[in-house]
């Protein structure tokens, strides 16, 4: 389970882990925007972005290969299009396409690998993302593993009884139907549990942590670095 590893990473204690999620999220956006607007010809700039990311990964004490491997999940998609672009004769653009998608993926991963889900959702919320959306994100994430595991075991049960032979459309719809029913019941149970603990239709938020000078410094450094690379290279 991919997200379990990320979850474990996000509970680290490096200085990057300790930065305020808002600062990290803002830095991510700056990085992505700068990256996205870099011209394909500025190949040195891409190298510089990669170095910036490597430094950040190193300071977060995360395994660079593990992160890169996960970010490479985008490569099949971008490689296809890079190939198409290369075909049409634009080698630089093809290269830039692959680099941009990979580096962007890596940067996004770095955020979630140094910030627990509660952190970045709180940051989104402080930026006025709809509360309802934040709650749904948290619930989806919370039950992802539970329900995926249920689905997995149901598939196993079918495999045990030779589903590859006649495991047709009907089997699959049956599985999805039962999975749905169980999910629905679970949701009912959760709602009951919330009521039992005094829920009155509104989540009471816990207090946010203060934004410190170090966080502002971190963001400024990221901003300056990105802009310098973008303008100079």
């Amino acid at each position, binding site marked *: 389970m991919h997200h379990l590893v990320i979850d474990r990473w996000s509970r680290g204690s490096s200085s990057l882990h300790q930065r305020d999620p808002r600062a990290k999220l803002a830095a991510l956006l700056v990085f992505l925007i700068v990256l996205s607007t870099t011209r394909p010809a500025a190949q040195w700039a891409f190298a510089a972005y990669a170095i910036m990311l490597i430094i950040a990964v190193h300071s977060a004490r995360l395994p660079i290969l593990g992160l890169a491997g996960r970010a490479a999940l985008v490569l099949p998609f971008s490689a296809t299009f890079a190939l198409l672009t290369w075909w049409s004769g634009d080698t630089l653009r093809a290269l830039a396409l692959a680099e941009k998608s990979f580096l962007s993926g890596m940067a996004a991963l770095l955020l979630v690998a140094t910030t*627990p889900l509660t952190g970045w959702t709180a940051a989104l919320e402080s930026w006025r993302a709809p509360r309802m959306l934040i709650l749904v994100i948290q619930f989806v994430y919370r039950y992802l593993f539970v329900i995926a595991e249920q689905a997995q075991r149901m598939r196993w049960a079918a495999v045990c009884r030779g589903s590859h032979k006649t495991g047709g459309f009907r089997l699959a719809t049956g599985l999805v139907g039962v999975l749905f029913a169980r999910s629905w019941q679970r949701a009912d149970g959760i709602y009951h549990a919330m*009521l*039992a603990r005094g829920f009155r239709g509104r989540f009471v938020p816990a207090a946010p942590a203060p934004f410190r000078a170090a966080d502002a410094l971190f963001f400024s450094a990221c901003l300056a670095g990105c802009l310098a690379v973008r303008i100079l290279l």
Partner: protein
Amino acid sequence: MSKAIQIRGLRYRYPDGTQALNGIDFHLDAGESVALFGANGSGKTTFVMHLNGLLRGEGSIEVCSMPLSDETLEQIRSKVGVVFQDSDEQLFMPTVLEDVAFGPLNLGLSPDDALTRARTVLKRVGMAHALERAPYHLSAGEKKRVAIAGVLAMDPEILVLDEPTTFLDPPTRRDLLTLLRSLPQAKVVVTHDANLARALTTRAVFFDQGRIAGEGDVIELIQRFHWEYS
């Protein structure tokens, strides 16, 4: 002695037509512990859901001498803490600390007070080391402890436990038992486990098809209904 719970003639029918409760009379004295026995599908879980008004059937329910109604619902929910069978349903917040603080926050405590209370309770159930962890990474036994902590944080007068020991290995079970015994609250324990019932409670009630088929001393009731299987 004052009654913690007093129920008369409780009936409940699920929307699909299943008559799950069919006239239940029940009482619980303050500080007393009672076991609920009964076959699968006899209505124990349905009954338990009525104790804090999660389900609303016909009949009269009084908790701590307050009749259960829309006005008293909130107060009663803070007096009766239910620990569900499935901890995954009970632990819905992203971290252990937030989860346990959820109840106190809803009770109107300030965020600081709520967190303090959550910490105290988590220490009490032996989970103070896992404050920032996500509930889905915990083991079954740890989840159950956190679920109990979430309920204790509401400072209830009555604890209701629906099959608290399923999936737990014997040492974890023993620890849980020790914990439950150390809690002063009145308890309603739903269980299929005669050992657990004997260890925790003195009186028992036996459910059969939505009715109460027997009531009395735990040991005597277990014998009467052959409710042990070894």
